[in-house]
């Protein structure tokens, strides 16, 4: 049954449908927009390299980089490249693989029904041959090489290897040239059949569309009718403390680039996850956002510049907070940040800052709803975490200072790690 819920504060209505296979469908009608976008995603990303198939007791372990490899390969169909078919329908398609999900999407302005049918069909029909799997290794190899030269990417993954000893979030999403060498058609198909079961997938559609028609299309095109049950995702339990405190790398950059972070292992789902993520974002902005005393001081001392920012990443499989940017002296910034965090944990956030930052975040959340693509992604992403993106309106309305201060005391007391990319010294270059 198609369910409907109105969010008055946001001026939005969400239509939700659950297919017999267990697949969830989210539809938001945006009147006046020309674009229509759809995201078809599986709750399967680079961290899912160990799992138990539904009903099985034994664990399966696979080489790193398979989720991303599959994303590349699904575009290739027995009767040609699916990109060309979308192209013929005037749509721009793409896909991405993250730590925890793989998503296939398109945006179009016309012929939405045909594009949606194509999306649902091709993701359900992989076409793999030994030959086309080998061919893809060249392209993915170049993608990996491209990221090896990307300082922002390297500083981030180097930090994750400091924060985590065991959890696969520490591994590059695409794997390495060595791990992808071991990927075969059989391994790809095995993972495909496990994770691309509709019960592990979701669809989001945003635009000026008819929700009933979207549901009719889903019922017509989704082939598997029964719910095959849950996949047992196996993530290692991290010990307290970081794997290493500091990691440095030399690259061709003009100024050092740094990123610090702390882990939050208290993973959850649903509204508690949404509240914790929001509380932590507000805390970080109050601590070192643009309006903070600390940001001003570091900026005016020339220790940070506009590239500085904070980020909270929290999903059911893992959670961490990061902050960083360019700095001529990352160690100095790290020391100042550690002192400020200790102070914040001791004093707690004040009521005025909390109210102001919460209001600003709510405004930015409302502004973000202009983007159909972003909204579709958030609907799927939050859906996989058993929560709803629009529930953020309620979170902003009801979040309390006490809640934020409790999260600060739980998360920011954890030991931090520091990742630095430094310029290659002149003499060596």
């Amino acid at each position: 049954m198609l369910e409907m819920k109105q969010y008055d504060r946001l001026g939005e209505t969400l239509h939700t449908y659950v297919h017999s296979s267990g697949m969830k469908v989210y539809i938001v009608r945006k009147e006046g927009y020309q674009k229509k976008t759809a995201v078809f995603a599986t709750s399967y990303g680079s961290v899912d390299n160990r799992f138990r198939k539904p009903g099985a007791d034994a664990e399966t372990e696979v080489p790193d980089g398979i989720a991303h490899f599959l994303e590349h390969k699904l575009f290739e169909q027995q009767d040609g490249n699916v990109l060309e078919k979308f192209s013929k329908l005037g749509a721009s398609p793409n896909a991405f693989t993250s730590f925890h999900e793989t998503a296939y999407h398109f945006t179009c302005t016309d012929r939405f029904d045909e594009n949606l049918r194509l999306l649902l069909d091709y993701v359900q029909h992989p076409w793999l041959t030994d030959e086309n799997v080998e061919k893809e290794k060249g392209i993915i190899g170049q993608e990996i090489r491209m990221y090896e030269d990307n300082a922002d990417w390297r500083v981030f993954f180097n930090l994750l290897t400091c924060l985590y000893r065991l959890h696969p979030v520490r591994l590059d999403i695409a794997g390495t040239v060595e791990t992808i060498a071991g990927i075969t058609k059989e391994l790809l198909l095995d993972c495909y059949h496990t994770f691309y079961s509709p019960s592990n997938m979701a669809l989001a559609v945003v635009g000026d569309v008819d929700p009933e028609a979207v549901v009719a299309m889903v019922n017509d095109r989704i082939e598997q009718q029964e719910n095959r049950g849950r996949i047992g995702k196996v993530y290692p339990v991290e010990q307290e403390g970081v794997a290493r405190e500091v990691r440095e790398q030399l690259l061709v950059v003009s100024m050092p680039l740094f990123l610090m972070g702390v882990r939050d292992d208290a993973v959850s789902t649903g509204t508690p996850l949404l509240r914790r993520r929001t509380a932590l974002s507000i805390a970080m902005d109050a601590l070192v956002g643009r309006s903070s005393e600390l940001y001003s001081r570091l900026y005016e001392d020339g220790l940070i510049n506009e590239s500085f920012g904070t980020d909270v990443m929290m999903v059911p499989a893992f959670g961490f907070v990061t902050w960083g940017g360019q700095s001529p002296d990352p160690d100095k910034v790290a020391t100042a940040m550690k002192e400020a965090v200790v102070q914040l944990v001791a004093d707690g956030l004040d009521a005025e800052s909390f109210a102001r930052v919460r209001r600003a975040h709510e405004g930015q959340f409302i502004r973000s709803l202009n983007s159909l693509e972003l909204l579709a992604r958030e609907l799927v992403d939050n859906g996989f975490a058993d929560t709803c993106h629009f529930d953020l309106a309620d979170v902003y309305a009801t979040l309390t200072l006490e809640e934020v201060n409790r999260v600060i005391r739980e998360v920011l007391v954890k030991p931090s790690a520091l990742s630095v990319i430094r310029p290659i010294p002149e003499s060596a270059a």
Partner: protein
Amino acid sequence: MSRKPCADAESLGTVNGIRFFRIRSDKFKTARTDIFITDPLTAETASANALVPSLLKRGCEGYPTSRLLELRLEDLYGASFDSQVMKKGETQVIHLSVAHVADRYASGGEPLFADTSALLTELLTRPVLVEGCFRREVFAQERENLLDAIRSRVNDKIRYASLRCVEEMCRGEAFAVHAEGSESDAAALDACQVTVAWEKLIRTCPAYIYFSGEMPDSDVQSRMDGFASMKRFPTAVHSGPVPESDEQRSVRYVSDVMEVNQGKLCMGLRTHVRPDSPDWPALMVYNGILGGDLHSKLFQNVREKASLAYYASSRLERHKGLMFINSGIESANREKAETIILEQLADMHRGAVTTDEFDATLRSLDTSFKATQDSQPGIVEFHFGQHMLGVEESLDTLAEKVSRVTMADVVRVAQRVALDTVYFLQPADNADSTGK
């Protein structure tokens, strides 16, 4: 379903040499004000102009520090103030904007548009000056940041290869000047020189102001009245696009060696199509077929067929009439990749384009025109690009012209596109950047 009317920029007239526009639409949850100021791009003025927006965001009389300004923006429901400097052809553009939730989302009933547009005006026209100049200490910090930004061009290797290609290709032309100017020019500036640059920008340079979204008419009028009383001595809009000679010269090959893993190829071409030319729509189609999207010749042949690269694409610089082809490849594959790219250019030249390639390009361009109308900043940028060229056609009109482009038109512009410079950022033999 009826075709939705395109979000046009309705002219509100010219006041004090400033052109005002209003872009109405109620589908967005936001409203915004955009100010563009233009000045010819020259090596002498670029760095000083580039520093102006950085200094303006350090505060104004009412909010004299960045922190007070940021606190105010948070109070305004997380409004954002952005300032940037860019180049469009041989024109330097200073862009200031403020974006915020539409007034209807202000739960306290605050007049957000009135407040933010007043704030933006104050930031532009009433910075904190000490003895008539920007504060020395603040100036020194921002000059250092600009120098860092100039030095950090090397950080993004794809962009760096493109910038180096432009430097080599347009040596001696104004377009070779970077939007932020050069390190030596920026280092030599003092606070008073930049104050003079700011005065010139606000008093004499051509300016364009756009109000987008839902807002009370009276608020728009009072904003315009504010500018009407400003002391301004506007100069005429400068001459516009630079004419291009059709003179052909031999292709230049340049490479730099760097400690990187992947080589970056950037090929610069001259299109000999002026930005206001009736051939502009045909050139857009040409670029789309060659390397504009996933269906394009470059993506299909360099990546999909030969597996040489993860990315291979082309893009146009409309205002200067240039086109750039970019791809990231292994050093050993350079010749192979270059050969395939040249073959694609040759195919374009002799009109070897399939109906599928042609039709897919038209559809893709049509989608992107329509999609632009779903982005508030996208609509503003499109109209500003048109207005600064003196072209008044709407998004719908341009889309209509593109839809009528024929293969013969594409072949005609293809005859004028000429390869000028091939730049390669080459990995050093012993490149090794493993973590220690």
